[in-house]
Each structure stands twice: as C-alpha cells, then as structure tokens.
C-alpha cells in the first residue's frame, strides 16, 4: 500500500520533473501492458493480437474527434467501446482453441484488421490519421496545455490500473485462477469456462482500447504502427520484461521498453563515449536487434521479469503489491 502511495505522489509530481508528453505516452503504454497482463498473467492466454485493440480504438477515437467533432471524453468512450466490441468478436472466435492455437488465431485476426485499417479511406493509409485536436474536456476544460492533459491521462491510467487490480481480486478473478489451474475440473464444477475467458478477453481488449484512445489524444495522430503485429509483440515484451502476473510488472516493463525504443540512440552513443567502443554508436540503428536480444534473454534466464524477481527476493507477505 505504502508503495502505491509513493507511486501516486510520483505520478502527480511527474509533469514538473519529466517531459509531460513523453510521460503521457509512457502511461498509455503502461496501461496497455496492464490490460495485456490481465489476460496472460491471470488466464494464461497469450494474445498476439492486442495491437488490434490499441490501433482500432485509436483510429475510431481519432476519427470521431476529428471528423465528427466529438469531445475528447466521447471519443475515448467510443474508442474503448469499439475495442471491447472487437475483443468480443475476436475472443469469441479465438477462445475456441487454447494454447498456441489461441495465440496464432489472435495474431491472424489482428493482421486481418490491420489490412482493414490500411485500406479504409479515413485512416489515410501510411500517411496516418493526422491532426487530431485535443479539444475541450466535456466541452469546457481545454486540453491544449500539456499539464492539463497529463492529469487527465494520469487519472485514466490510475482508473485502469485500479480496475485490473480489482478484477484480479474479485469473485470473477477467483474463477479465472481456478480455470487456469485445472480447466476440466472447473467445467465439472459447472462453470462455463469459455464465457469466463471471453469476459476476461473483452475486459483486456477494452482497457487496451482505452490506452489507444488516450494515446491518440496525446499524440494528435494515429498511424498503422499501433495496429501492426510488431506492436502486439512489443506489448508482450513489456509484460515479459516487467513480470507476467504481477500488477506493477507491466508498468515497469512498459517504461523500460519505451525508453529503450525512444532513447536507444542516446544510450548507444552514451555507452560508446563511456566504454570507448565505437560499435555502440550503431545501437541507435539496431533497435530491433536489441529488442530481440532482450526477448531471448528474458525467455531464457529471466522469466519472472523485473518485478517478479524483486518479489521472490522480498520477505513473504509484502508480495501483496505484486
């Protein structure tokens, strides 16, 4: 609990210390990762199609705000709803298979949506959906000011995080765990496991959507990057690095990966100047390679992720934060 308090304060103070826009972007991805983690961490379902929700919600929100002049909150609402809907359909199909099949199906369906976005007229293809205004919250409070927007984003993130936590510690969460542990037994206890999985999937999708919608507001545009399968991979990596099945893990993971992606160049040249090894200067141009290595290392040696590792080292009991 104390930890959460500290984090909350840190979050509130952040915009005066860190660059607000970067911070907002980080929060969006953190929320995205948390949503993803809700699925992998607590139902054991590995989705490789979560980009569909991030991107999809992004496009919808961007579109209704820009072309239909909706207010931000409406935009976000619609975006999230859309993601939930996509989640419902996608889940409904994918849940029919388990394990690796589930993964491949989500991947394939997301790819299908990617082509839809690519070809749809309003998304602007590779130009992207550009110039989405931040508008006025409830038609009143202008979000032009980064700090205003920041607190909105922060509030949204906190809400999302709280929701994930609640879901896990709810009667529903209990059943999810039971299903994860021994599915046939859960069936024989009279639970319709697929409906539980589906609900979990939809929740995860909706929250991912929320992240996507918020992100559009922050960045002011939506591009195919968010809907591409590589994005689905990125969120997996974030969760893996931070620690699957831990509450804070995804947040940490998201921060680490995002900072890597944005600052690889600096990091590289930094290392180069420190170590004097020229090669590091190329790091900036080899983000994918580095990401790949992180993936491999995590899978081989570091499966608990950062937070997971910390938790196992902590004395028992405190792990409630995990």
């Amino acid at each position, binding site marked *: 609990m104390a930890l959460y308090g500290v984090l909350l304060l840190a979050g509130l103070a952040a915009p005066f210390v860190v660059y607000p826009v970067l911070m907002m972007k980080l929060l969006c991805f953190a929320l995205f990762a948390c949503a993803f983690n809700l699925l992998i961490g607590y139902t054991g379902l590995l989705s490789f199609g979560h980009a569909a929700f991030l991107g999809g919600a992004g496009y919808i929100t961007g579109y209704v705000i820009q072309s239909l002049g909706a207010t931000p909150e409406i935009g976000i609402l619609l975006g999230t709803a859309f993601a939930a809907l996509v989640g419902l359909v996608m889940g409904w199909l994918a849940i029919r298979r388990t394990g690796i099949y589930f993964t491949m199906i989500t991947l394939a369906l997301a790819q299908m949506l990617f082509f839809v976005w690519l070809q749809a007229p309003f998304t602007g293809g590779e130009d992207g959906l550009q110039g989405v205004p931040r508008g006025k919250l409830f038609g009143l409070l202008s979000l032009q000011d980064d700090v205003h927007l920041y607190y909105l984003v922060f509030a949204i993130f906190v809400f999302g995080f709280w929701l994930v936590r609640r879901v896990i510690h709810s009667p529903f969460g209990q059943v999810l765990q039971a299903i994860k542990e021994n599915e046939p037994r859960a069936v024989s206890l009279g639970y319709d496991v697929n409906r539980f999985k589906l609900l979990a999937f939809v929740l995860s999708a909706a929250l991912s959507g929320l992240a996507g919608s918020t992100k559009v507001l922050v960045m002011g545009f939506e591009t195919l990057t968010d809907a591409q399968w590589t994005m689905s991979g990125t969120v997996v990596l974030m969760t893996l690095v931070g620690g699957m099945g831990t509450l804070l893990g995804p947040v940490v993971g998201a921060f680490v990966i995002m900072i890597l992606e944005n600052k690889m160049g600096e990091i590289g040249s930094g290392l180069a100047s420190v170590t004097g090894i020229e090669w590091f200067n190329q790091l900036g141009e080899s983000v994918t*390679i580095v990401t790949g290595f992180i993936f491999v290392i995590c899978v081989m040696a570091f*499966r608990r992720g950062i937070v997971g590792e910390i938790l196992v080292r902590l004395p028992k009991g405190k792990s409630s934060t995990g």
Partner: protein
Amino acid sequence: MEFFGVPLAALPSQLLLGLVNGSFYAILSLGLAVIFGLLNVINFSHGAMFMLGAMLTWMGLQYAGAPYWVMIFVAPAIVGLFGILIERLLLRHLYKLDHLYGLLLTFGLVLIIEGVFRSIYGASGQSYSAPEALSGATDLGFMVLPNYRAWVVVASLVVCFATWFVIEKTKLGAYLRAGTENPRLVEAFGINVPVMVMLTYGFGVALAAFAGVLAAPVMQVTPLMGTNLIIVVFAVVVIGGMGSIMGAIVTGLALGVIEGLTRVIYPPGSATVVFVIMAIVLLVRPAGLFGKEK
C-alpha cells in the same frame, strides 16, 4: 461464359497460379507442423528461416559463385545446422516450461536474425534470376506457364509427400509420433530422443529454407520477405489443424488456390481471405479441418 465474373478461360490459369503459391504455404506449414509435433513449439522464426534460405541462395551466387542447383541443397543444409544450433543452445532449455515460451523465444530470434541481415544487406533486396535450365515458359494452351513456376509445384509436392510418407508410414515416423506425446517415455524405451528432437527441428527449418530457395527467383530477396508470409501460414495452420501432416499439405495447397481465385474475383479481399476462411473454419470446426483436438 463467366464464373464469379471471371472469364472461364482465365480460370484454369488462375487455379494453376494459386497452386504455385499453395506449394509455398504447404512446405512452410508442413515444417511448422513437424516441429510443433515433436517440440510443441510454434516456430515463429519459420519466416526468418525461409528468408535465410533465399538470402543464402543469393549469397552463394554472389560470393561463392555457387549456382542455384548447388544452393538448393546447401542452403537448407546450412539453415538446418543453424536450426540444430538454436535447438541445442536455446530451445532445449524450454521444453519443461509452458509452450508459450518457445513461441516467445523464436519471436525474439526473428527480430535478431532479420535485424542483423537488414543492417548488413539493407532492406531493398537483392536480384536473383531463375537458373538457365528453368528459364523460359511453356505454352499450355490456356496459359503460358513459366517453367520455373512449374518446377516450384513439382519440387514442393515431391518434398511434401516424401515427408508425409516418412512420418506416417515408417518406424522412424512412429518414434516421432510417440515422441510427440511423451518423449521421456520413448527415451525410456532406449530411443535417443534428444538427438531425434534436435534433428527434427533442423529438418523443419530446413524445409522452410528449401521454400526460401524456391522463392528466391520469384520473390524479392530481402531480409523482410518472411515476415508477412508467416502470419498467413499461421492462419493456414489453424485452418488445417496440427493434427496431421497430410492436413498441413492439403490445406496449404487448397488455400493457395482459394487465395489465387480471390485475386481475380475480388482483388481487395485477397489479403484477408485466408483469415476470413480461418474464422469460418473456427466456427464450424474449431479443431481445424484435420485437427485431432478433443
């Protein structure tokens, strides 16, 4: 005389072209199926191995002057060895864990392999043209079929069915199938399973590489050529279901043809048709057309 707005005359040629693509799908999904069978790993890096096959073919000619006919054996061999290395050093340590880790690992490998090749050879691709013996085309009456495409179909069919025969009809195949279920026990019968697994992975990726070699003259040879393809192949695998080897082959070919037809009937849909079919199959037959899941 028309068929979904396709002049009937054009139909056979389009079917044939579909078959050509189908044979790529077939080999790739076959490789995936074989690997999945014994290792329970969905080899995400399959596309990268496909790319390696093609790149090696080009490099062979570029740096060693090795012609197509040499590389068609050498490239898969090299990739196979590379696969064996991966299995030894990495995959091997994941079998005890949830299968998902295998997928994640191979995904990481994709990023590395493609990234490395891209930073060395760039993304704009290399030129490679079909061997003399296969250049030119044959007039089949209803169409002019480039000889090379014909070769692709023949070669892949031969490879596919050879593989099918070994796995379904031989003792070795029985070991493979048994190992698929309970490797430890099979080992307890005195069969050297670790080596079997290693070779299987090697063989699986070699298949991918073989497809890559076949693709080199007809597709742009670039470090990224595998990525999009593999996702479609995943869909193919879901449609076919991992149940049977034959399933992988047949589905691969069939979907190639269907996709081909869509290119004529409704071109904008050709990118998504496979995924749509996947969705439909999931509705009516969740286990996939040839799937053997409870």
